[in-house]
């Protein structure tokens, strides 16, 4: 296992920036998800790490050694990094067994040890009965597991996965997510997992790097991303809820600020003394008839156990949870509590641009 580190990493394709000054440290054994809209550079970062592309600037280190940048370049075959492709990239002319055994053949692992390790990798991924099949005789989920087995069989220093579940149906995705979690627990491998499905990222990863337009916006644990987004983009992209502009009143209450949001004075957690926006999660909205802030119900869907309401107030769209069904067009009172404020002037516009671009 090895830690990964990117410093000032940039990549341009024909002068157009795909990655812009990426800085990140991933500790050994960590499971990190790269989350972001399409075209934000996730695959590019992965391919740079694997060694399929050369960086335009900056440096990549694996296990403390520079593998790219600073005048050095270690080719993919010498990086000891395993990769699982979205298209699986199984070799169609080799059986499942031969696919999984190939990394060991290349390394000249003695036959007996090779057989033992292939058998272990196959049983870990539940493929023991399919060893003699050809890839064309497998289902999508089975192919994905062969790709995983092929990658774990040689004990890579890090494992890179590029949207490994994008081609699978929902049920299979859930069970494959468990395979990945189990695989991570068993091997303790450093894993970098690309996805544009936030549910997958939040469920699997120790930490999530949210990317937009070639930059990492925030790199933090899932609960931190949800509760304390650093800007409008992250607040809007991760989790449910709304981003609304806020005005400072200059008052504080202990560690909290008193902000003017939607014409109400509310208490808010904040990382800065002069925030510009608040993130309003559904849990932050309490519905009560006597509350002064009035909102019109514009949508109501049942989520199992509770209803998800979309509310319109002062031209903003909020999301709240409710015990009871609400009629569309009905007016309800809402109270805001426990908001998170951050400073991102002009942020809503850039967020919309980033999402529209996706």
């Amino acid at each position: 296992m090895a830690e990964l580190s990117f410093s000032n990493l940039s990549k341009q394709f024909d002068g157009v920036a795909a990655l812009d000054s990426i800085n990140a440290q991933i500790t050994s054994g960590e499971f990190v998800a790269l989350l972001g809209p399409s075209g934000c550079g996730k695959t590019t970062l992965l391919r740079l790490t694997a060694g399929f592309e050369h960086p335009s600037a900056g440096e990549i280190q694996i296990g403390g050694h520079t593998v790219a940048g600073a005048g050095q370049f270690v080719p993919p075959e010498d990086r000891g990094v395993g990769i699982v492709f979205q298209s699986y990239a199984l070799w169609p002319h080799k059986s499942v067994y031969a696919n999984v055994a190939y990394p060991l053949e290349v390394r000249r692992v003695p036959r007996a040890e090779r057989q033992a390790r292939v058998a272990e990798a196959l049983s870990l991924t539940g493929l023991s009965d399919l060893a003699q099949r050809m890839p064309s005789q497998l289902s999508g989920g089975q192919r994905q597991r062969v790709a995983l087995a092929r990658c774990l069989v040689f004990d890579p220093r890090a494992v890179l996965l590029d949207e490994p579940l994008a081609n699978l149906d929902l049920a299979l995705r859930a069970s494959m997510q468990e395979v990945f979690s189990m695989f991570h627990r068993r091997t303790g491998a450093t894993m970098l997992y690309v996805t544009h499905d936030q549910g997958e990222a939040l469920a699997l990863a120790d930490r999530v790097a949210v990317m937009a337009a070639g930059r990492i916006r925030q790199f933090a644990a899932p609960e931190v991303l949800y509760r304390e987004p650093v800007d409008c983009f992250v607040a809007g992209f991760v989790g449910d809820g709304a981003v609304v502009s806020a005005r400072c009143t200059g008052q504080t209450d202990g560690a909290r600020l008193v902000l003017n949001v939607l014409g109400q004075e509310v208490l808010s957690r904040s990382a800065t003394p002069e925030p510009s926006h608040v993130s309003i999660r559904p849990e932050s909205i309490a519905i009560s008839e006597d509350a002064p802030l009035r909102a019109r119900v514009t949508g109501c869907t049942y989520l199992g156990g509770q209803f998800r309401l979309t509310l319109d107030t002062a031209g903003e769209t909020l999301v709240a949870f409710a015990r009871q069904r609400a009629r569309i067009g009905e007016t309800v009172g809402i109270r805001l509590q426990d908001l998170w404020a951050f400073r991102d002037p002009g942020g809503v516009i850039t967020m919309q641009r980033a999402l529209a671009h996706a």
Partner: protein
Amino acid sequence: MKTPAFAKGGSRSLDRLLPLILLPVALIALGPVVRLLLEGIGFGDGLTSAHLATVLSRPSTGTALLHSLITAGGGTVLSVLIGASFAFLVALTDIRGKGALVFCLMVPMMIPPQITALAWMQMAGPSSTLLKVLGLAPPLGSPQPLHSPGGIILLLGIQHASLVFLTLRAGLRMIPADLVEAARMSGAGSLRVWAQTVLPLSMPSLIAGGAMAFVTALGNFGILAMLGIPAGYATLPTLIYQRLVGMGPSVLPEVAVLSLLIGAVAILGILVSRYVLSRKGFGLVGLSGNPLALSLGRGRGAVEILLWGFIFVILGLPLFALLATSLIPAYGVPLTFASATFDAWKEVLFIQPGTRRAYGNSLMLATSAAAILLVISLPLAWLMERRANRLSRLLDALIDLPYALPGVVLSIACILTFLNLPFTDMTLYGTIWIILLAYLARFFVVMLRPIQASIAQLDPAMEEAAASVGARLSRRLRDIVLPLAAPSAAAGAILVFLTAVNELTVSALLWSSGTETLGVVIYNLEDSGETVMASALAMSIVLLIVMLMGLVQAGAKRFPKGVIPWQS
């Protein structure tokens, strides 16, 4: 952590060495052509345009050029008529047995032209064994009707119809189905849709196919020589041949100019076809599909009979005639059950040292060319697809040239280049190696393109996956690229073999006693009146070709699209 941290050393050496193969390839494939160009401006005797002026102002040059243009032009018109009729009927209507029909239409393309000419001559004329059997032979002494410009045009037209057919059919497949459906919705009948929508849209492919047929006809030495030389009808390739054979290497500067002339006409044709094809993409967006499934109704049977009848006339009859001639004891003797004999077959296959040697030479040359090209083309195709740089792209664009240029042009270019090996006193002229080198240059694309196509279709992730698990370039090429490209490589090798084994145009100018090829021997046998033996030899080659074509056809499903020339 079982892998050592970043093994260093010779890991990238192959990555650095591989691009070096571009150099010899460029030298062998394009060197002779460049050398020929230099000759035109008087390379060696100082810059001069003297040769150019004398040769070009000679009346015989003008006549030969005119004859070349007439025969190639007439042949092209005929090819377009035949090829287009077949393409429209096969692609747009519901006739049955399309696969077999296409295969048969392609056979003339794969049969060497001198054999085509020989077969047709056995079908017409006063000594035709077939006509004698049927009692239809014209009286002795009447002229062979094919020894004429008309005969040349007829045969050129038939031989290259398949080129037009293939290009047009590929173009027809690109026509979006919804375009045709839209026309039908607005009430146009099938014929009207064909005339007003399909025909205009397929014009570019038709023109491109015609240009290809023209260029190929221009350099079709076999037919021009077999039919034109006896008729005293000189074209540029036969003029070059006769001058060089008659006078020897001393006329090289002069024939170089002639070959530049024919090369220039050919390149003009190629440029026209490339230009037309490059503009073909105009607005053809939408789902392509079967544009028209025109039902012929009652007429279907009649059309099928017509098509098969035509195939019989252009393919069946000449081959029957050839077979008939190969079975008689001596030329002029009528064929009966009593007189039929395999003597000529025995003679050419087992007894005559010349023909046996030619078989040996041709098989050796074809096998070596296929094997060498196979070994070079795989890494080369990989390089061009995966590590394209300016040199490889240039080579990619120009490597068609030795194949597209008329064979005599390449032969003259090779003689010029290898007559005196640069920096030595040695010469390759008169040895078998000069033929081999010329074959390598000429058939490079035949091998390269199929492999390129299959590597282009290969998901790069296949190789990246191998790299990420630790396989170096040489192993990736061997374990991943080679097995996956093998079917197309095999198809390419068989195609090279097929084309090389019958080749006449290049070897006609490069052979010398002992290095004759099959093409040369057939031509010489016929030239010296040994028509029966020529027919037997030709027939044995036709069998070999059809067998090899069948072999490729049998494996057709395993090849990527576009690899087999007779399937588009």
